[in-house]
């Protein structure tokens, strides 16, 4: 968010590059960085995954708790997504309660999972209206080099697929944990694809330096049947309607490719 002369020069240079169809790291405008996903990295969590997307690193941990359902959906488990931009990840991250960027990140990832019905929440009811499982998804950003939403969403999906729920029985109103586990019931595989608009052109998977100069950002989350299940425009600029249609087309392709990294059939 520097507005200095240097930034302006850099912005112009980056914009010129993009006009020529080029990017700083020699990717094509619609090339994704290499993504590496490793699951089961935090054994004490019920599910976990670590993603490296270029130099961006996110660790997602999933804990399962027991609590009360919301009163309007008494027979559904509860999903809660939280993001921490921990200060070792970037010189611009400050300790303290989540700011608007962390909250937006968590809510966009939440939306993709929730709207695509990725988790079968009805399967997570223990006693209707009284006790249900709570799925805590914690997005833990370890190194920030751009495109946190896509990295976090992908790692969250990988972690969900890696999650085990303990067996239990209910005795006299108390939940008792029994030996053994079963997988979390996952029914859909939402993938977030983010575009940056630079000099009126779209690039996919922006790295940090591109985010610093972009006019605007658009995230489209695509579920397994190619439906759009979440959208988020951000940034100080705007999009034209054609750009959004173009983005939707590319998002479907990219989502299918990325999905293969975490959904093994």
């Amino acid at each position: 968010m520097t507005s200095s002369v240097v930034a302006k020069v850099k912005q112009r240079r980056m914009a010129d590059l993009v006009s020529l169809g080029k990017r700083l790291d020699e990717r094509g405008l619609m090339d994704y960085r290499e993504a590496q996903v490793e699951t089961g990295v935090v054994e004490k969590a019920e599910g976990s995954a670590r993603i490296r997307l270029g130099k961006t690193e996110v660790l997602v941990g999933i804990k399962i708790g027991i609590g009360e359902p919301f009163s309007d959906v008494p027979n559904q488990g509860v999903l809660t997504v939280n993001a921490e931009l921990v200060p070792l990840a970037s010189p611009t991250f400050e300790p303290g309660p989540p700011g608007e960027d962390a909250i937006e990140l968590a809510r966009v990832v939440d939306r993709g999972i929730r709207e695509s019905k990725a988790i079968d929440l009805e399967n997570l009811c223990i006693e209707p209206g009284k006790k249900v499982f709570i799925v805590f998804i914690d997005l833990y950003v370890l190194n920030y080099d751009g495109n946190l939403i896509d990295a976090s969403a992908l790692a969250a999906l990988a972690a969900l697929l890696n999650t085990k729920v303990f067996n239990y029985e209910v005795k006299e109103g108390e939940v008792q944990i029994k030996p053994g586990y079963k997988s979390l019931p996952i029914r859909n595989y939402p993938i977030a694809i983010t575009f940056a608009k630079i000099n009126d052109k779209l690039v996919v998977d922006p790295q940090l330096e591109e985010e610093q100069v972009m006019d605007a950002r658009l995230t489209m989350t695509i579920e397994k049947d190619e439906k759009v299940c979440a959208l988020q425009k951000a940034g100080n600029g705007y999009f034209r309607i054609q750009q959004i249609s173009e983005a939707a087309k590319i998002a479907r392709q990219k989502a299918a490719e990325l999905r293969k990294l975490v959904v093994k059939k």
Partner: protein
Amino acid sequence: MPKKKVKKTANEKDIRHDGRKLNELRPIKIEVGVLGNADGSAYIEQGKNKILAGVYGPKEAHPKHLALPDRTRLRCRYHMAPFSVQERRSPAPSRRDIELSKVIREAFEPSVFTEYYPRTSIDIFIEVLQADGGTRCASITAASLALADAGIPLRDLVSACAAGKVDGRIVLDLDDKEDKEGEADLPLAYMSSQNAITLLQMDGMLTGEEFDQTMNLALEGCKQIYQLQKEALKAKYLEVKEAINKESEEQ
């Protein structure tokens, strides 16, 4: 609550639960310049939504280290009154409020000539007094008028409207019931003269075709709302003009 599935006749299937047609906006009432202290203000009723927007600025940025050397800093607070919804809500800002404040602020950035006022800030305050679905869009519609009322130079007004999918049909301007029971909701903010989409979000599931259809319908809604905004501004100016004339006559 069990929903009865009634077989609909040809006409009925294009009518929504509140009697509207698929592409029909809720009744909208807009007033500009409604607050005494704010530099600019506007009030909107859209269906049962009742929303007040006030603007202060440009004024010296405070604290100073937040000042931007080359432009004004837009700030925005979207806030819901505790009594605006069914169950009383805490007045402390929720995570949803914080996200909406951010995307609404970003929806206005392209409309304001921010470079005219370096080192200042402009505050947009939105108070939802009653909420009934689509508050973020109605808030943007009102706040854009508040910015204009404050005399802030704008490229154009920003108009906002949602479209979505309810009971399998693509419909305009969902109310709360449609938002909760429907399949998708897509709020969109638009600057007509710039052909610029400045806010775009979506909850739900839409095929590619439905998505295009929904986005286009939302754009249609924005264009209608744009006309209402301009009328509301004109009404305010006429009022001011009359007041001035009257004063001159009296002297």
